[in-house]
């Protein structure tokens, strides 16, 4: 009996979680962006090269899920170029942007793997 109730409650909880409207989707995106905002203190402790490597790692993860953003690879390329030319401060800006967009794209991939179902047309 207890197991039966557990199964039913799990289903009810999952059903509630799957209900979403545009406001929730918007909130989800905000959460995704927020979660992608990198910890400033943690970043400050890292070198530009390390941030670029982090960005490349996350970019590859997003690409593996077929959700890479075009802007991420551009920021990575720009960061590497600026770093090689000795423009460390500018390279840092590009590297941070690369990491942020990479993390946002990965968060999008994970969110959308489930969220798409709420958007699909339902048969009557």
């Amino acid at each position, binding site marked *: *009996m207890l*197991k*039966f109730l*557990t*199964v*039913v409650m799990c*289903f009810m909880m999952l059903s509630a979680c799957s209900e979403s409207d545009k406001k929730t989707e918007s909130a989800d*995106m905000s959460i995704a962006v927020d979660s992608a905002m990198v910890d400033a203190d943690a970043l400050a402790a890292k070198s530009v090269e390390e941030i670029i490597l982090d960005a490349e790692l996350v970019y590859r993860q997003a*690409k593996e899920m*077929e*959700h*890479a*953003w*075009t*802007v991420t*690879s551009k920021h990575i390329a720009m960061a590497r170029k600026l770093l090689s030319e000795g423009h460390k401060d500018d390279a840092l800006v590009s590297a941070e942007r690369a990491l942020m*967009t990479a993390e*946002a*794209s990965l968060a*999008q991939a994970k969110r*959308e*793997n489930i*969220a*798409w*179902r709420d*958007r*699909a*047309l*339902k*048969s*009557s």
Partner: protein
Amino acid sequence: MKNWLSLFVGSIVFSGFAYADPESDRIAFKTFFEKRFPNIEIGEHKDGAYALDAAKREQWLEMEDFPPYEIAVDEGEAMFSTLFANGNTYADCFVNGGIGIKQNYPFFDTNRSEVITLEMAVNDCRTSNGEAALDYASEAMGNVTAYMAFTSRGNTFDIKVPDAGLSAYEKGKQFFYERRGQLDFACSSCHLDSGGNMLRAEILSASIGHATHWPTYRFKWEAIGSLHKRFAGCNAQVGAEGLPQQSESYRNLEYFLTYMNNGMELNGPASRK
């Protein structure tokens, strides 16, 4: 006994997560667009945005007087008729000699467990006859598929989804509804939710009818190109990295979209802006 009862109930309550019925999806899709565009017969959506605006349609019909894809069709016919080194031709690979068969593609090959598009079938034909495969983005592939599409005009799609193909169909459906790119758009964002609306200076076409008219000569490309090339372009427009033509995901997406177009008339190749 209690464990079996829990399992039984669990399987019932979780059955909502099982694969959808493609035919129910198609009917829901069709009904959506019938309601969205009550004055446009569903079959007219094969002309895309030109079914939605009279002035644009008139301009487009004038362009069709001298179709820009004519050269591709002629060159494709020449390719189709040219013998391979071993003496065979494309006609030896396809039912009905490859004439009037595009409505059968894509299909789910249960032996290979994957979706096979017309472009893949062309390359399968070539390699099985000792010829080099064509680059999917090549003019040659565009030409031969343009010719095959031309011979299939007027036929109607009747795509099947066997049980083994449900996973591929579902993945294609997921791709269609999944948001991607920095702009966070899904295919459905523009071509379902916003179909008929303006995006900059263009009218967004409805998804129903999206698979009927390929390959297409796009004036933007100044060349004939495939549906997968358009997928990649759309992905890039929303800030997402496009996938290679004939990638598994794009084939699954084409499978889903084409199933949604079952019963619709093929009218490729076509011209588009």
